[in-house]
């Protein structure tokens, strides 16, 4: 593709292939050596922005020739004084904050998760304190962001603007919320991995002291090792870590090395029993942990659904209250109507009786 120097209006409909024209265009516009075919994927939309700019120049020169001038300076100053604290700049601010959070999380993701071995003395390895700090900071940040979004939403609803602008702002806030939710998901994924690793680590560290007793009694190595699910490697590394700490304990034990064979056997049996007990416990606890994690996930889903229904239930509640009020008033009105009806009847009766008496009177008077 050759670089088109500016707008060669070589589109076939126009048939402008005049090279002279091209040169003048180039000189007036400057160095715009952009290929008109601005796309490299399967879309053949043609960018005619440069053509448009050329037409602008043409019109300008034409207007100058005719003598129409446009005072552009006044309007430009006017435009500069756009409201700086409008809705859009604040929304953009919230987005930039969320982006900062996302970048921060991604940056420290590797260290945070630290899939490497647990004994690495790398400088990049984070302590748990640092991780907790990150957790806390991220949570506070997310909370402030969601509050800012809520605030924006309230403000947007209070201001009396046209429906289109309201709709637009609502949609913008929805987009920002979605973005925030995406970033929160990143964070919670990271955290879940970290929690899982902590749990695993704790489990391993519980088993480790028995590993050394097993070193002396090799027969118990097989069943125990068969029961553990973790790979040998991580166990050994854990044992290495605890090696130093347990080493001096071992020293003390070796002092009383002269034990009678019966005592040794007793100790053996007790060890066996303890080991099996511990393993049972470990199994149960592992299962329970797994279930708890699942339950918590379910709980999250349910909570979400319930919260969604909250607004609808509120609506229904209000409607029901209104309906009860209406029914009560209706009852009152009916009672009054009955009373009026009764009273009305009394008057009619009285009137008829009076009429009949007057008739009788008149009749007696006449005769």
């Amino acid at each position, binding site marked *: 593709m050759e670089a088109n120097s500016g707008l060669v209006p070589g589109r076939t409909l126009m048939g402008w292939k005049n090279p002279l024209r091209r040169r003048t265009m180039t000189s007036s516009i400057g160095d715009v050596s952009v290929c008109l075919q601005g796309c490299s994927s399967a879309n053949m*939309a043609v960018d005619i922005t440069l053509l448009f700019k050329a037409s602008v120049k043409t019109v300008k020169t034409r207007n100058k020739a005719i003598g129409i001038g446009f005072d552009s300076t006044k309007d430009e100053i006017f435009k500069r004084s756009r409201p700086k604290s409008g809705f859009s700049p604040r929304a953009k601010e919230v987005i930039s904050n969320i982006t900062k959070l996302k970048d921060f999380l991604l940056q420290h993701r590797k260290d945070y998760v630290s899939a490497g071995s647990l004994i690495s003395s790398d400088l990049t390895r984070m302590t748990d304190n640092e991780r907790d700090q990150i957790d806390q900071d991220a949570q506070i940040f997310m909370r402030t962001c969601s509050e800012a979004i809520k605030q924006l939403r309230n403000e947007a609803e209070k201001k009396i603007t046209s429906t289109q602008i309201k709709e637009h702002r609502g949609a913008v806030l929805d987009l920002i919320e979605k973005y925030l939710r995406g970033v929160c998901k990143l964070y919670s994924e990271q955290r879940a991995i970290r929690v899982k690793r902590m749990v695993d680590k704790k489990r391993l560290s519980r088993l480790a002291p028995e590993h050394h007793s097993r070193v002396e009694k090799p027969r118990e190595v097989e069943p125990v090792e068969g029961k553990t699910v973790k790979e040998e490697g991580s166990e050994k590394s854990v044992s290495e870590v605890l090696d130093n700490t347990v080493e001096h304990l071992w020293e003390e034990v070796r002092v009383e090395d002269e034990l009678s064979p019966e005592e040794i056997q007793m100790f053996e049996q007790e060890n066996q029993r303890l080991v099996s007990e511990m393993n049972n416990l470990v199994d149960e606890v592992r299962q329970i942990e797994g279930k708890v994690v699942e339950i918590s996930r379910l709980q999250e889903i349910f909570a979400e659904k319930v919260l969604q229904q909250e607004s609808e239930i509120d609506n229904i509640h209000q409607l029901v209250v209104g309906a009860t009020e209406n029914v009560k008033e209706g009852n009152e009105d009916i009672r009054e109507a009955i009373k009026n009806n009764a009273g009305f009847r009394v008057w009619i009766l009285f009137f008829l009786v009076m009429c009949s008496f007057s008739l009788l009177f008149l009749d007696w008077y006449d005769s």
Partner: protein
Amino acid sequence: MAASVREKQTVALKRMLNFNAPPLKNTTAEPVWKVLIYDRFGQDIISPLLSVKELRDMGITLHLLLHSDRDPIPDVPAVYFVMPTEENIDRICQDLRNQLYESYYLNFISAISRSKLEDIASAALAANAVTQVTKVFDQYLNFITLEDDMFILCHQNKELISYHAINRADIQDTDMESIMDTIVDSLFCFFVTLGAVPIIRCPRGNAAEMVAEKLDKKLRENLRDARNSLFTGDNMAAGQFSFQRPLFVLADRNVDMATPLHHTWTYQALIHDVLDFHLNRVMMEEGAGAEPSPAGARPKKKSRRTYDLTAADRFWQKHKGSPFPEVAESVQEQLDRYRAQEDEVKRLKSIMGLEGEDEGAISMLSDNTAKLTSAVSSLPELLEKKRLIDLHTNVATAILDHIKSRKLDVYFEYEEKLMSKSTLDKSLLDIISDPDAGTPEDKMRLFLIYYITAQLVPSESDLEQYKTALLDTGCDLSPLNYIKQWKAFTKMAATPANYGNSGVKPMGLFSRVMNTGSQFVMEGVKNLVLKQHNIPVTRILDNLMEMKSHPETDDYRYFDPKMLRGSESSIPRNKNPFQEAVVFVVGGGNYIEYQNLVDYAKSKQGKKVIYGCSELFNAAQFIKQLSQLGQK
């Protein structure tokens, strides 16, 4: 043509909405919001491809019509997707003057002319908004894609390029020129989006030939212009995995007049024929029920329901072309499967209740929580399935009502027999004078098909008899005049089209096709099975693609825009059979032809066929056009 036309157009639209930059794959990218402004053409193009939710996901907060009242939203970029017509340009200039938005990205559906560009430029200068007009693009997307392999030219002003407009007797040359230009412009946009230069073949002596000549000229000019050609560049390298160029067959409606009038039996074609179906959207009235309203109460209003039949609907994609009884069975099957899943979810509730009593709580718990998790996560899927099943149940029930009231199956069977020239068991007169078999329109269609496919013109007395019978049932006879003319004309030109051997095997009368609990009682509706047959358009395509020699197609003209000199010959240079083809019917098409082509493509391994037409009409609309033509 590795990706289908629909995907290509969707990708192009998404690029445009992303300010003409390729969209990023990263899902947690910063949201950028914008406003989309379109005119009716743009709306028709976008609505089958992108749903409102997808637009929202791309950051479009508002989507508005160009000619509606729009309020200024001063800090938002606006993407315009309009046709470069006078009124649209005026409105854009007005928007620029009123400073409605912060920046303007103008995308024109087809190429804009220089003078109109200058109009916008002067308005921008006047409003001092030149810097706000950030980008101007020609999108070349002037066609509507309905399916993966089907497109139509336009929906809004289709009267301008309808069959009636092309074939009316009082047409002027200038009118014809403008119609041809519109069609060629859209076809050009189609090939630009497809990214391939086709080899064009068309019959002689009718509108299709004119279109072919103009298209060839336009493609040739564009290719010659090496600097500006739309067909060179990375696009070709990326998109073309086959060395072959597609075959573009132009057919004219006049080659086959019976198929648009034919009663159909496949699902999609039935929906188009019987219900209100436009741009993949069905509009139905929900009946209020047959019971009389109680005294004093307001009569129940009939609500209109619209359903979108999209590409995501797997049931629809699978059963678009199946005959109707099969569709009914499948809906029933899906419903049963859905109910089974629902019951399973409900059963979990009872299991949950038991868990506290059992000793082995932990082991049961593990199963249950896993089951519960899977059930809860599959709930949204289940709901979506239910919605689709409801949709199809409603649509199919509506169609079934129509079929039963108009006895469409009888018509279908009879017409198939007429078109395949097999023996008829009932005489035409019986069906026409049968008072409860169909509307007058149905009868008219039947009679027209009979007239078109009859080898010998029926005698005058027979004709009179038919005419009186038709008039008795209230038909309008003007289409008949036009068809008579047409028949005379085509008899002069060529041998009448042969509809091939089709067979209709009725699978006996089913008194009740479904078992208990079903909603489809197909009493008395024959379960007809379609045997594969080829309508004329498919046969033409077959001949041309396989380079078979056939008297019908030997005389077709041959255009190759890539050749240096156009030739008048009709001898193809390339002797190999084609793998890809685009069939375009000038004057209108319908779903029966589309379905037939899809079946043909399926039967041949490795061939891809795309169907297009200048407008999509169902038989009712076609009859209206014919009567207009016959009335002059």
